[in-house]
Every structure is written in C-alpha cells, then in structure tokens.
C-alpha cells in the first residue's frame, strides 16, 4: 500500500514536471518567434516607407534642379537672376536664415522635460520631414544644441522655460502621425511624465522665426 502510494506520487510529480517543461518551452519559443518576426516585418515596412519617401523627395528635387538648369540654358539675364535668387531663398530657408510660414504641427508641453526628451522630439520631427523647427520662438538649425542645467533647458545658449512649444512646418498629417504613433515619442513622453499635459495639434499656419545664433565656419574649408 505504501509503495503504491509513493509510486503514484512520483508519477504525478514526473507528469507535472514534464507538462510544466513543455509549456514553458512552448511559451518561450512562441514569444521569441513572434518577437523576431514581428519586429523584422514591421522594421522592413518602416525601412521601405522611409525609402519610398526619400526617393520621392529625390525625384522632386531632381526635377526642380532640371528646371533651374533649363532656365540657365535660356541665357536671358533676368531668368538667370531669378533662378539664383530662388535657389538662394531655398538655401536660406534650409539654413534657418529666413522667417518661414506654412502648415505643420504644434507640440505643447506644460512642464519641464529632460534634454534627452527634447532631443528625441527634434529628432522625430526631422525624421518625419519637418522643413523648419522652432522651440519657444527659437529656430532649430543643423548645429543647434540643447543643454540642461539645474534650472532647466538651454537651446543655443538661451534659456527656455515651460511651457515648451515646439512648432514644425511640413506635411501636418505626416508630422502628427509620426509624433503620435504607438510607441512613438509623445507616448513615451507621457509615460515618463504622467502628470504632464502634452498636446499635439495640426496647424494650417505656423510662423517660425529666423536663426539668431552664431553658427558659421572658421576651421572648415572647401575640399575640392
């Protein structure tokens, strides 16, 4: 009687362990399979969509330069001047040397965030195709620096205080989608600052001022 009991106990424990082992293995397997595959197909979709957008932009820019070239080839003095002025204008917009207006998004954050949060926001806006970015009335350019000290954020040596208002000109739908996407920059921000009020709105007319800083070239020379 005693031996039979103990055999049953062993058998039960043995079966239980096998079952447990199989289930655990199955679960970890299905999790890793899901992770790598989901991640890589989402990843590929994003890489694809980036490439499609980038190639469309390249095509557009090629057409615009071909037009410029055509107007040079017409060799009328006025069209040459117009072409150079138009291109200069475009470069100044890119470099933040002209005040610009246009559609886009406004991100409003009511309290202090970290320097990394601000850098991530700017990076996300750039990635979504922002043509001009402003933070609390300052134009963000290529070389703009966001720093942080005990009292808060400093952009290009000028202190800014909350509320932080980021404005970006570009396709307002694309910009809004990029900023608000699941797992995106505002979702993470809201998670890290649960008490903060963060709003994102599409705007039809934003104005972003000229860059007031001192970026220029003193060490670099043309390599040709």
């Amino acid at each position: 009687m005693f031996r039979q009991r103990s055999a049953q106990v062993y058998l039960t424990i043995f079966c239980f362990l096998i079952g447990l082992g199989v289930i655990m293995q199955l679960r970890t397997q299905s999790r890793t399979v899901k992770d790598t595959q989901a991640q890589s197909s989402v990843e590929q979709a994003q890489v694809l969509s980036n490439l499609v957008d980038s190639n469309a932009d390249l095509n557009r820019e090629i057409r615009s330069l071909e037009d410029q070239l055509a107007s040079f080839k017409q060799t009328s003095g006025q069209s040459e001047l117009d072409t150079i002025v138009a291109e200069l204008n475009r470069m100044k917009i890119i470099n933040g040397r002209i005040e610009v207006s246009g559609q886009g998004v406004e991100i409003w954050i009511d309290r202090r965030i970290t320097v990394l949060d601000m850098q991530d926001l700017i990076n996300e806006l750039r990635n979504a195709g922002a043509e001009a970015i402003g933070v609390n009335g300052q134009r963000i350019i290529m070389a703009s620096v966001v720093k942080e000290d005990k009292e808060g954020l400093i952009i290009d040596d000028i202190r800014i205080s909350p509320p932080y208002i980021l404005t970006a000109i570009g396709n307002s739908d694309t910009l809004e989608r990029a900023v608000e996407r699941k797992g995106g920059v505002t979702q993470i921000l809201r998670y890290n600052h649960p008490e903060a009020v963060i709003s994102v709105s599409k705007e039809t007319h934003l104005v972003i001022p000229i860059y007031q800083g001192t970026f220029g070239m003193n060490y670099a020379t043309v390599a040709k």
Partner: protein
Amino acid sequence: MSAWRINRWTVALGIVGLILGIVLSMRWKAQAQNTVPVEAGVRSSAAASIKRLEEEQKSLRARLTELQKELELYQGIAVARNDSLAEIAQDLDNQRILAGLVPMKGPGVKVVLDDSTKSPAPGDDLSNYIVHEYQLRDVVNLLWEGGAEAMSLNNERIVGSTSIYCVGSTILVNNTRLSPPYEIAAIGNAASMENLLNRSTSLTKIKSLARQYGLQFRIQRAKEVTVVAYEGPLTVKYSTQNTVK
C-alpha cells in the same frame, strides 16, 4: 508487486498525460507550419524591394549630385557674363556650404563606435554589446556643442534635416541604412571637441559600457579630416518665406 498494479488512478493519469502530449505537439507543429514559411516569404520579398529601392536611391543621388555640379558650372558662366550676379552668386555659394552641400576639410576629431568583440556571458543583456542610435545621437550633439562646423557619420553628411533613427536593429541616417563600425568625422576646434567628449560627465553610459562589455569607443584628434557632401534631398515644399511683417 502490488505497487505496480494498474488501478484507475494510474490509468487516468496516463490518459491525461497522453492527451496533453498530443495537444501540445499538435499546437507546436501547427504553429511551426503557419508562421515560418508565410513570414519568410513576406520578409524575402520585402527585402528584395528594399534592395531595389536602395539601388534607385543611389542612382537618384548620383543624378542629383551631377545636376548640382552642372548648375554650379552654369552659375559660374552666368556670373562671368554678368558682373551684377557676382555678389548674389557668392551668397548662394556660402549658403550651400552652410547647408552641407559641399565637401569640407579641416582639423577636427574622429570618433569610432563599434559593437563589442567580447562574447556575452550567459544571461547577459545583449543590448549592452552593440551600438545604439541614441549613442550616436549623443556623440553628434556633443560635437555640435564642442563647436563642430561640419560632420559626417560613415558616409552620410549630417545636415539640418538629418535624423539618426533606429528601426528595430537597423540604424538609419538620411534614410540610408548604416552598419557598424560607425565613424563620426567632425571639423572644428579639435581641442574643444575632444575635451568635451573626454569630460568625466560626458557620455558616461557609453564609457562604462566600453569598460564593462567591451563596446568599442575611440576618440582621435586629426590634423585634417574630410567630410563628404550631402547627397540627399533638401525638401522645401510646405515652407514659404513669411512676408507678413
């Protein structure tokens, strides 16, 4: 002997075990059959599209560069013919340099980041052994702070619209996939950039990963570094000069 006599208890247990085994193995098989081939098919066709689009991107970039050179030439001819254009053409040349459309050279620093060559200990977090996009972003931001004037990451010029982005395990810069090692070249005041990077409060996480996990991180001062020109699009489609004063 009586211990091994078959009774109801044992039979029940045996049946439960058998059913459990069959169900689990069926689930396993079904799962293996469903997911792997379908996903693999989608992935390989997506990979082919990526490759095709990357080739297209390459040729579009080459065409753009060619057009820019041709335009510069025509601009030069126009200026030679018409003195009054000289000043504005000079202005345009300067703005093109600031925008990153011209290759530059000068003193500066090179920073190399690469995945660790150490093999991870069991149970280690693998992400400690590889370079992440935010680490590159931190280095780039610090270099601007240190007074960089022109910068490239591998063969991509950093311009105003550049994002250093990560999709899964892939790092994208200027919508181009990069792979390690990552080399950042920066022109500017080398001492100031180097000091900022070496400062004990800078890049503390990268430095500790380098010590602990062998993440590769090197800063090198150089008499002359060259930085490539930007080859991508500089889109101005939604912004116009604000004329309301």
